[in-house]
């Protein structure tokens, strides 16, 4: 029988890892913790949450930074500790893991849809091979109207992880979450 994969192997692996965890309630708890820069997305959906371990009233959470200079990491660490308080965890240790380096491939399908609804084009909305570098001919599906008739304004948007585009159909400027 031929199996047609509905999600990428990377995402399947992540979900399986989460399913096998001993602490499903803590993963669920962190679904409430959003990326402070993009409040539409949870830490899980953006792909920076790697592991959760608990010993009594202590927990350790392994996260991986998106961009190395991401100023949101400190706020994220605080938000995690606050969320865990409700589960009787007094002390949360944040372990920052650099390797393997974060990639937008870890972003969940749900996260990509939420990003689009929020007005930011997810990396896979770049027309053609989204691993190729951006150039003046790059086209992205506009998250507002869906048109592919767009132009690149700047390779850097409001944060390092985004590029700025404008739609030629509806004229709205919008961000693209760059593939990395």
């Amino acid at each position: 029988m031929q199996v047609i994969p509905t999600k990428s192997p990377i995402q399947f692996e992540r979900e399986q890892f989460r399913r096998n965890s001993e602490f499903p309630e803590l993963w669920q708890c962190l679904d409430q913790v959003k990326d402070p820069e993009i409040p539409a997305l949870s830490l899980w959906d953006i792909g920076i949450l790697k592991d959760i371990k608990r010993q009594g009233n202590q927990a350790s959470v392994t996260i991986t930074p998106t961009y190395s200079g991401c100023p949101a990491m400190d706020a994220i660490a605080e938000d995690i500790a606050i969320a865990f308080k409700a589960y009787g965890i007094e002390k949360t240790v944040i372990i920052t893991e650099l390797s393997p380096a974060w990639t937008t491939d870890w972003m969940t399908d749900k996260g990509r849809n939420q990003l689009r609804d929020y007005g930011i084009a997810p990396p896979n909305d770049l027309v053609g091979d989204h691993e190729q570098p951006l150039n003046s001919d790059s086209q992205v599906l506009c998250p507002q109207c869906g048109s592919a008739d767009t132009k690149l304004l700047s390779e850097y948007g409001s944060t390092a992880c985004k590029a700025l585009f404008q739609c030629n159909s509806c004229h709205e400027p919008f961000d693209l979450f760059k593939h990395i």
Partner: protein
Amino acid sequence: MTSSTKIASKQDTIDYAARLGDDAIVIGHRISEWVSRAPFIEEDVALGNVALDFLGHARMYYTYAAQLSNEQNGTDDITEDNFAYLRDERQFQNHLLHELHKGDFAYTTARQLLIDVYNKHFLEQLKNSNDETLAAIAVKAAKETKYHCRRSKDWTLRLGDGTSESHEKMQLALNDIWGYSHELFELDELEQRLVDAGIAVDCTQLKAAWLKEVTAIIEEATLMVPDQDWVVSGGRQGYHTEHLGHLLTEMQFVHRSFPGAKW
């Protein structure tokens, strides 16, 4: 040279990580000086983001240097801040090219071209380091450097092949900084020991590929690779230009005024 000086020590790795951190934090600070002064708003935002990337790289290198220092000294209170804020000019070992003054926009563009292309080749090699942490930092930093390289190439073409004034300013900038580029490919005894141990990058091996790539971009931008033969170096030994002290004064001011200050 005695045999004891040939074998890389932990202190060598600390110094090496700190050097790489110094390069990143100094150029990051320089680029940040453009914020609110760039030619237009998108470029302002772009420069701010590139500066932030470099600050991020510096934090990773310094955090690692701090961790190794704590292991070596049996302490737990050395942090990235000790390296960024509590060292003086002579203790910084960044390449001089990074610390030169902000200059005009052509100057910044020319410098970024030389540095970004260098970083691309350098990080590609550092990925193979025997030191797992340095290799992991390289993988992460290389992804961002890819974007930096494209941006500085685009700007070099735009200014070099732009108006007669932008062309002239780009050529002047290249002429002004070219003599500082040779230092990027020097290897001192410390780095040689680490190269032998498979930890550091042998940067003498990077020059041919760097020069080829930089030359192609410069020529495509209708500019000329400077043919002057002057060379300035000394940054890796802590001998700096007049510019670094001023930069550190500003960068370290808050931490020196409020020791131990935390966000």
